[in-house]
């Protein structure tokens, strides 16, 4: 049971990281549908750099940088050139899928070093929860830290409030002197960095080698989770755990011989995504959590 819970937690980390990044991006009013593509870039960059330098921590760094770079392409098109965000985001994913296939070709079948586990003294000895919570690799701790960092950032810091202002009403934010485009560029880059790290986590901790399109839809689930969480970081954690849980559950059900068709279980994570979106949209009618300017262009010249 303990091992299962650890597996579920680790499976949800890529979705959680990418989701947290997208949450910040969307809070600033930018809808980036390229999460899946950015994750793939992070994954291939991480694996490639680990194969070259041999150190998994360098993999995290390169994953993050790759995410930022590819998100900059998106920012340039949508924020500077003001192209359609939905189309550009989809294009980014399609482009990145093919690009990473090309870059990753020499890495197929190569094994990279995994992130080491860091046990926190005393805490990891607590029975039951110690092993699950305090004996993980650095990105798990980082993801948990990021939840609280973003939560308090939006509530209590000036920068957080500026991002929210830009996302909710870019004209007012502009009129009191904030650079809407700059804030959006930075938020989108932050989203790219997180997606890159989320992607990097897959080859660095889950499956220690590259295969084309290895994110397998995790980016889309992360996107749905942002809506599911109604733009609240702590709810995002719960959502990510549910999705991680369902992904693992389909295998557990088979291993234990439950009489459910495996194809049906394969479908569950996506079914849950659709259900979550339907429920949220029902709720949204009464209580609008979405950033008001989400997906809208800012036409001002600054």
């Amino acid at each position: 049971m303990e091992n299962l819970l650890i597996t579920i937690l680790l499976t949800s980390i890529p979705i959680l990281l990418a989701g947290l990044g997208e949450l910040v991006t969307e809070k600033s009013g930018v809808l980036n549908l390229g999460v899946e593509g950015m994750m793939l870039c992070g994954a291939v960059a991480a694996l490639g750099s680990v194969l070259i330098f041999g150190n998994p921590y360098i993999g995290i760094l390169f994953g993050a940088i790759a995410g930022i770079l590819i998100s900059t392409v998106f920012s340039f098109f949508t924020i500077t050139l003001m192209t359609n965000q939905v189309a550009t985001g989809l294009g980014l994913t399609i482009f990145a899928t093919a690009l990473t296939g090309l870059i990753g070709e020499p890495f197929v079948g190569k094994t990279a070093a995994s992130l080491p586990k860091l046990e926190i003294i005393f805490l990891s000895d607590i029975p039951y929860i110690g092993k699950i919570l305090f004996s993980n690799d650095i990105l798990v701790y980082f993801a948990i830290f990021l939840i609280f960092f973003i939560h308090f950032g939006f509530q209590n810091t000036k920068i957080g409030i500026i991002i929210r202002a830009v996302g909710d009403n870019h004209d007012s934010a502009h009129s009191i002197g904030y650079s809407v485009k700059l804030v959006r560029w930075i938020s989108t880059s932050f989203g790219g960095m997180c997606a890159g790290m989320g992607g990097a986590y897959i080859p660095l901790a889950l499956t220690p080698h590259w295969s084309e399109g290895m994110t397998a839809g995790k980016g889309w689930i992360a996107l749905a989770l942002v809506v599911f969480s109604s733009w609240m970081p702590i709810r995002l954690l719960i959502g990510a755990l549910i999705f991680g849980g369902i992904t693992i559950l389909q295998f557990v059900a088979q291993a234990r011989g439950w009489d459910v068709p495996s194809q049906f279980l394969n479908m569950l994570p996506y079914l849950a995504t659709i259900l979550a979106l339907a429920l949220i949209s029902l709720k949204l009618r009464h209580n609008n959590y979405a950033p008001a300017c989400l997906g809208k262009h800012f036409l001002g010249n600054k």
Partner: protein
Amino acid sequence: MYKNFLKIITFLSILVSPFLFTSAYAKTKVGFVYLTTPGDHGWTYAHELGKQMVKKEFGNDVEISIVENVPEGPDATRVIRELAKQGNQIIFTTSFGYMEPTLKVAKEFPNVKFEHMTGYKRTKNVATGNIRFYEGRYVQGVVAGLMTKTNKIGYIGAYPISEVIMGINAFAQGLRSVNKKATISVIWANTWYDPVKEADAAKVHIAEGADILAQHTDSPAMLQIAEKNGALGFGQSTDMGAFAPKAQLFASVNNWGPYYIKKIKQLKDGKWNTGGGPDHWAGNTWGGLSTNMLTLSNFSNMPTDVAKKAQAAHDEIKSGKLKIFAGPLKTNDGKEIIGAGKTLDDGALWGMNYYLEGVTGKVPK
């Protein structure tokens, strides 16, 4: 007029030139369709090694074209048709999911010979090639039964088709020949190759208490997870020891080369056929340990007495002394398949849609 005449001559000579060349050099054009890039491990790499043996055997007498990374489905039809159009005389399609595409294109090109791995449908110009993978899996079962401490074996299957199921059942027969208490639980990945899914399935097996893992999928992900978690397992298609030096017990290694060479020789001699029987079995290839189409890599990470027993099982299968599916056989819900003294024939193996004793759960419908 003179100009036009020149044009026509040039055009005709271009049209005719390929035929001139082929007759001059008597090159046999051979096509291969690969599911993935060959890389350096697994299913497609084993085919790549076979192709290299063909190159070595025939040298300049063959001209080989390969298409890599062909998804199973409509794309495969397009690729196979293209290879046939380019004048390949024999085309090897190397994945189960190419079965319908191969048959479809074979109808359009009755003069081209097709060799499909590892399907069960044949026509006048479509033969099949396959390896008796299950023979290796019996030996895996013997080793697993002797090595397991938890008596739980985790098995990762690709699709619930008879080829995979007969492998699971052969594994169970080997397992129960040495250890009646151990059981196999099966997780279907519903894919031949998806390292992320295979890794997830392996993690779940280990979390559920399995200490020996077996796979009928193609990536080394399962072994890598076993290595990380102190479990043991078996490699697939090629030796995967490099991925998991402390976890791989041994690998069943596919050796396609002799089959390719045999069929290309037959074609060159004008003797290529798919046999005469209703199933055309005679002209189709299904080789195992005895014909070296299946070999086992070195036994490792096990005590010598286990290795000896594994070697003994291997030798007895190879010599034909040991019949893997010899009666009495019972399904895992107690139904008798055959009684003592009888043995399942090849046709019965392809009809397997049940688990034998030792496997838990039910075959998905």
